[in-house]
């Protein structure tokens, strides 16, 4: 965890999280396979998020989900989870652990600062708690997860330097 930026009403922290992207039908069997491993049922509505202390589980599209581990696990454990899910021939799990970077954004003014970087509508009536969005932030394709009092933003790790530099540059202006 690295503290990146702190200003009035907003704190930005970079976090080491892990992620698995899941593809499948989303039927009962799909739900059971996942639930057996992480004790969490996948959300059935698009862009909805369910979470517990260990995971964020979001539905990204009609046949795609992402599972983010909030507590850093050994990579082998993640790969084991991927392997177990992939044993089901109608599902695909891909390890995204180290190909993404994660930023946790908190504070009352977070929407104000983020509005300098994205056209996305953060108003609670449009982006309620426990939903997610895929949009451009600082010109980079990002996923934003709205948890109770914070956003988790993730993007491809190859963009990490550009994203951080651009983000910090703009919110400081």
């Amino acid at each position, binding site marked *: 965890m690295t503290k990146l930026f702190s200003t009035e009403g907003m704190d930005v922290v970079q976090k080491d999280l892990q992620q698995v992207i899941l593809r499948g039908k989303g039927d009962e069997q799909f739900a059971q396979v996942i639930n057996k491993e992480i004790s969490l049922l996948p959300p059935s509505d698009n862009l909805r998020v369910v979470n517990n202390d260990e995971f964020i589980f979001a539905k990204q599209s009609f046949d795609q989900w992402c599972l983010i581990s909030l507590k850093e696990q050994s990579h*082998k454990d993640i790969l084991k989870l991927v392997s177990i899910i992939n044993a089901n021939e109608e599902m695909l799990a891909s390890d*995204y652990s180290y*190909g993404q970077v994660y930023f946790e954004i908190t504070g009352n003014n977070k929407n104000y600062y983020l509005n300098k970087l994205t056209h996305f509508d953060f108003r609670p009536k449009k982006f309620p708690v426990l939903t997610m969005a895929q949009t451009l932030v600082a010109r980079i394709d990002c996923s934003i997860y709205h948890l109770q009092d914070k956003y988790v933003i993730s993007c*491809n790790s190859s963009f990490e330097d*550009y994203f951080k530099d*651009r983000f910090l*540059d703009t919110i400081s202006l």
Partner: protein
Amino acid sequence: MSALNNKSPYVIDDQKISFTFDGKKYFGFKGDTIASALLRNNIRLIGRSFKYHRPRGIYTCGIEEPNALVQIPSEYNDPNIRATVKQIYEGMVVESQNRWPSLKNDIGSINNLFSPLFSAGFYYKTFMGPKGFWKKVYEPLIRKTAGLGKPPKKFKSKSIHFYHNVDIVIVGAGLSGLLAAKKLVDTEHDVLLIEQDNFLGGILKNTKKIKTINGQKVNEWLKKTETLIKNSKNINVLKNTTVTTYNFSNHLVALEDKSVGNLQEKNKPELVLHKIRTKHAILANGHIERFISFRNNDLPGVMLAASFEKYIHRYGVIPDNSPVIFTNNSSTFSLVKSLIDLGCKPQAYVDAREKKQIEKKTLDLLDTHNIPAYIKSEIEGCDGKNKVEEVSVRAKKNNITKIKTSMLCVSGGLNPDIHLFTQSRGLIKWDSTQLVFKPNSSFQNTITLGSVSGNFSYKKTSEEVNKKLNFLEETKNLEVKLDINDFEKFNIKELWETKHAKKSLWSKSFADLQNDVTTRDLKQAVLEGFDRIEHLKRFTTNSMGTDQGKISSVNSLGIVSKILKKNISEVGTTIYRPPYTPVSFSAIAGRSTYKFYDPERKTPIHPWHVNNNAVFEDVGQWKRPWYFKKHDGETMYEAVQRESKQVRRTAGILDGTTLGKIEIKGKDALTFMNLVYTNDFSKTKPMSGKYALMLGEDGMVKDDGIVCKINDQHFIATTTTGGAMNVLSHMEEYAQTEWPNLNVYMNSVTEQFATFNISGPKSRIILSRVFSDIDFSNEKFPFMTFNKFNYLETEIRILRASFTGEIGYEVYVPPKYALALWEKIFYYSKDFDLVPYGTETMHLLRAEKGYIIVGQDTDGTVTPIDLNLNWMIGKNKKDFIGKRSLIRSDIVKENRKQLVGILPLNKSENIEEGQHIIESETLSTPIRKPVKMLGHITSSYYSPTLDHCVAMALIKEGRKLIGGKAFVSTPNLKTIPVQIVKPAFVDPKNEKLLS
């Protein structure tokens, strides 16, 4: 006449500010614009006109200004800054523009003498020839002598963008805008109120037309209303912000000036471009006064009447104590009253209307104060050197009366400010009573309030606000009582232009002040056949200046309608295009400049590359090492020769992380892969790979890569760096739309693995040292096989494959472990002098081997057969994308361009990529007849291994010509004799590759 100081609550008269104009020091007050400060100092001459270099002064008091454009060298030196908008600050340096050597004595004003020649279309007609003169003589000369300000030499400014998502945008915080906002206070609607000034109130602060609102003095009411809005939970206010654009889907763009009245700070954004999405847009942006065309209506000292009044009330400046007022409508009553209230008296009042049309209270006022009134009269023209000295009033027929004065206030009527409304694609209509174009029907969720909708009666404003906004939830009726000090009902007589008393070629009445378009130009354009208003606009450049003809375009329509003997509604209007006011490029660019110009992607090894003198190449958004400099003096050619020699001698390593990687899995994955690629994977053994080709439906090569089969339900495909996203989209599209019956899913795993390509004769030994528990022997690890291995806390994958022709491996490792592994590989290969190489060396090595690069050796018109890759087509497959196209007659014909190798007969000669291959040895100089072209060179490199140039080319019937001779043409029309060979120069039998 002097410009007196009046008390104004909006400029701070105890804060004196000094600034310079054309090198001379002047004083103004905090809150003054450049224009108000110059008027305060009795300066009338501000600039020179665009074409004729005529003297020009301050015509208006706002964004509509056509004349008073200046340059501010103390800032970023943007040209064409409107002096009527820009506020002064201590030490500000202001310069006039488009004059030389000085504003008063401008040599360019000689253009005015030749002006009878410079009529509409002068440039189009005159500068036709001789050939070549336009580029070398005319254009540089015209650019030097004509135009506005000078562009800044350096781009320095700092601007940001800001995004808003709201329910309602209110444009304009005048009376109607404020009433609309008040109605929405503390509702559930998210509201953004935008005001171009640095205060709320608009016309309430520019005039004394309203005495009280709900029994309160105007300023008191404004203060309370502003507090109410500020404390509301749902309304945000943007001041100093002008809405410039109204796009489709209720998307508005507004520009905020962050440094009003202050020097721009270097580390702060001076401009903010607001991009706003809304459900409803309320346009309450008022009206703009228009002028009347008469002889010399451009002289400094001619000013719009409402602007004169605004200088009095807003800035506390009376531009002149006794101006002549010329009008054709009711709106000038308040100016007369304001002047009298201040103890000043107009020199004369000239009204084009009949006496019965003129409001009684105006006539009473004139009568009571003995102001000479010329009724049913008009201004014929005005005269003076560099300023108004005398005006000519035509009272009856051609009876001219001369009046000495230094200022003439003109009002030709009021134009609802419909620019934004028409940008939103709303339809307008002509109101023949008020002589205005006003909104008729909205195209989007647009509501107009107040004078922008043609409602010039303040008393009706609250009624209009209630009527138009009551549909919004939670709103209540507003009760507003106004005590008005203005005309009761707007009244106007049609008058666009007055007649000249004397016919002279040098007499000018202007239709467009900024672009020096005269009423005579309009007539001439119509005579020459440009009778459609859009054509006429372009032929004359009427209303095409930075002011977009805000005070003049309707007059031009009026004049043209008279010439054409049509109603103005039949003539129509030109289209108002965004931006409403000029927007600087810095605001448009925002922070996407210099290092933020384009997003960059970096591999996990990037820091190592930087530390080892990599020179980078942009491949898509990726930064890829192009080559590594051994020392500062090493050229790219030397580096690439060194790197490639070393790879073939011992080993080299390439950061191949950027290659696309896609994981494909599902019950029907094998069927899917057989459909997407030309190859047949049915008999491919698990844990082995295949070089695979992907075609478009037209049968042309789309991408290539290695497909690794884990089992029949699970594959990993690699793609080219640039093609990664497209290949994934292509696969998804087919899976979702063409073959939804197939159970198959795919994920991009490009970012999940760093990839190292290690190749060269020593690569096996090096990897055996790094991964001591893996058997890399040919028997255990043959060509095109792969496996997964445990490595530290993770898992890596190694594929035996090569793009150099040498024995090679691709190592796939999660990014977290990549840099350490990269360094470890170097650690274990010290004695072999492992060389890092970049993309240029990779290209050379693969060309020596005859491997193609999609996009370099192909161009979207090349089939696998053209590339001699027939062996990659699964002949027994029932179907795959592009299969049907491969049997089309045009595809199977013999004389298509085919890939061949090219070698210069004289080994010391070099061939360049892109050069043409021809049959004939000599070319005539200059070339007069078409030269038969066989094809072109697609790849060419100097091979350090072979010590001569090797090239590949696509040439007609190439395969038949192998063994033959051809010629490569060079830019100096010499030819290089070459031999056509098979495209494989190094290890054609693959002995090294398979060793």
